């Protein structure tokens, strides 16, 4: 693709250890292009804690502070405070965490940091399960998904937690969803987040996982695109927890998305119909919120 509208910089070395077709790697590469080198990353336990390289190797060209699984919000707060005390107001602190570290174990420290309106960007790259430990369900795993802890007929029968709405409830200054299949939109949102200094900003990036979703690696981007085109993962932004903007309205059926993935192969026609109803209901609800714009 052509990055003529953004600086064509490459802040990732080619020698990372991500799986072929990893959405989280595509997400990082695009995000770094948007954010540039004046950032310091905070990464908790997640795929990227491994992908970035074991000692003494390093796949990135920006500083990275590893932190414990549940601590990203707190670690980023401490790092920001220290940079401020050192007089470095130029560097942006950016958390880069998976869905487990964001929706589940790290939710408390994230919630605390957002309530304090800490000055950093929090990125959740969402592959909808604990992929680094071998595909166990998280609270981001969608209704209908199989994982190693929701196997076969015990597939997940509760909904995916809505993280953006949870944080909108905190009245976060800026929250947005983005997808690796919509790079221009993703880059624009990362740039917007970079320019909004002095507040917590949250970016929820849909990042497909060929290993965990049981899809061919070459379908990684296509399936991420279908998630948006079916309104399963709508692209939208929320300012101050109240001003909603939908960036894309999909018109495809959920079946087109589900049928390509091994993790949904057990679903019946009726199950698929139920999922369609949920997705339609969620999108309608979201559309209603757009009308509440101040």
């Amino acid at each position: 693709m052509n990055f003529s509208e953004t600086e064509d910089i490459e802040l990732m070395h080619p020698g990372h250890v991500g799986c072929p077709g990893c959405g989280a790697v595509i997400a990082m590469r695009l995000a770094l292009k948007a954010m540039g080198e004046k950032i310091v990353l905070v990464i908790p336990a997640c795929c990227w804690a491994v992908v970035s390289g074991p000692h003494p190797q390093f796949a990135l060209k920006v500083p990275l502070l590893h932190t414990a699984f549940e601590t990203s919000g707190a670690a980023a707060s401490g790092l920001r405070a220290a940079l401020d005390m050192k007089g470095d107001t130029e560097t942006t602190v950016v958390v880069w965490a998976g869905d487990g570290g964001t929706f589940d174990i790290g939710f408390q420290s994230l919630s605390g940091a957002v309530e304090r309106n800490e000055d950093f960007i929090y990125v959740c790259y969402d592959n909808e399960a604990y992929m680094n430990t071998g595909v166990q369900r998280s609270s981001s795993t969608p209704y209908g998904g199989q994982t190693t802890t929701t196997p076969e007929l015990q597939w997940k029968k509760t909904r995916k937690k809505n993280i953006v709405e949870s944080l909108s409830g905190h009245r976060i200054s800026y929250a947005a969803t983005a997808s690796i299949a919509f790079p221009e939109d993703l880059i624009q949102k990362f740039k917007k987040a970079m320019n909004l200094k002095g507040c917590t900003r949250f970016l929820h990036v849909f990042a497909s996982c060929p290993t965990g979703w049981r899809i061919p690696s070459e379908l990684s981007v296509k399936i991420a695109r279908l998630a948006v085109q079916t309104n399963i993962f709508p692209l939208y932004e929320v300012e101050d927890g109240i001003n909603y903007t939908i960036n894309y309205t999909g018109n495809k059926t959920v079946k087109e998305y589900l049928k390509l993935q091994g993790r949904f192969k057990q679903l019946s026609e009726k199950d698929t119909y139920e999922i369609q109803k949920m997705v339609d209901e969620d999108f309608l609800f979201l559309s209603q919120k757009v009308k509440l714009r101040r």
Partner: protein
Amino acid sequence: MRQVLEGSHAVSEAVRLAKVQVVSAYPITPQTHIMEAIAEFCANGKMNAKFICVESEHSAMASVIAASAAGVRTFTATSSHGLALMHELLHWASGARLPIVMAEVNRALAPGWNIWMDQTDSLSQRDTGWIQLYCEDSQEVLDTTLCAFKLAEAINLPVMVVLDAFFLSHTYEPVDVPEQNEVDKFLPPFLPRINIDMSNPCSLYQMAPPNFYMEMRYSIFRAMEETISKFLEVEEDFYKVFGRKYGILDSFQCDDAEIIIIAAGTTASTCRQVVLDLRETGEKVGLIKIKMFRPFPKKLISDALSNAKKIAVIDRNCSFGVGGIFAQEIKSALYKNKNMPTVFGYITGLGGRDVTPKMIEEIYFKTKEEHYPEKESIWFGINYELFRN
């Protein structure tokens, strides 16, 4: 300047004088007074620091770890459940070789809920790679906190300054609060050995495979070994400026003592008085106060006990299935001694129960009269009526 200060505020004053740059903490009784005073210093400009009001102790430790990794001086404080919640990150702080200083107010763990003095909380963290220093009075709390920053930054390990709940944290005593210019002479600004450097992008605390991990742990082990001599240097520097020092151990009336009582924290104060009283009646008794618990000063202890016949260890803690933790460590330190004194381990004063001069006297005479301890751990002051069934 001499002021009447609460033990908690002796910590706060030291943190202000140490010019700490990032403080993060979560409320827990009986630690809260430490943080309230620091918050006030930050609010009224007496301290130029960022105070992060986090949503848990776990996050308090996580945030000071990240701040310390960015190269600024950091402090937090906690107690009991708060310390237990931090456990994972205590390992992280020492593994990352960060000179964080933490005040830890010794308090019991639930259930049942108990906010009073007990050593089990801090002693349970003995394997986390933190230096542990126990204090007897408010002056020692202030002085030890100042020394803790210098020691931590010299050795690149975190330091826990431990003070007893209420007996010390909430008791007012006259304390000499030094002037800023004198503290500056003793404690220069923090110069980090490694920190996040925007001009040299590195990955800090990344995955360490088996071919590297063990050497990383060995370096911590070695740093702990160096801590004993480094602590003495730091205390000597402190002595030159302020004229006070405490030692790793404090031997009191031990020269000709046949029986030596061992205690830490405020209990040592009570023991001092008992030792003086018993000496007046001709008893050959002494006291060793243990200030440093990690690293455990094995050699100093075995030397200090080499002439004693019997040892009475007062443990206000318990490792269930073993016994009093100080007693266990002391027995291990004596392993190579030629003249092995008989060690009597007394568990008492848990959950804030008083350890009175009378009880210490009884402990002394029990130790003197019995040839050998009836049990490895003697629970002292138990109401056995409650166990009749």
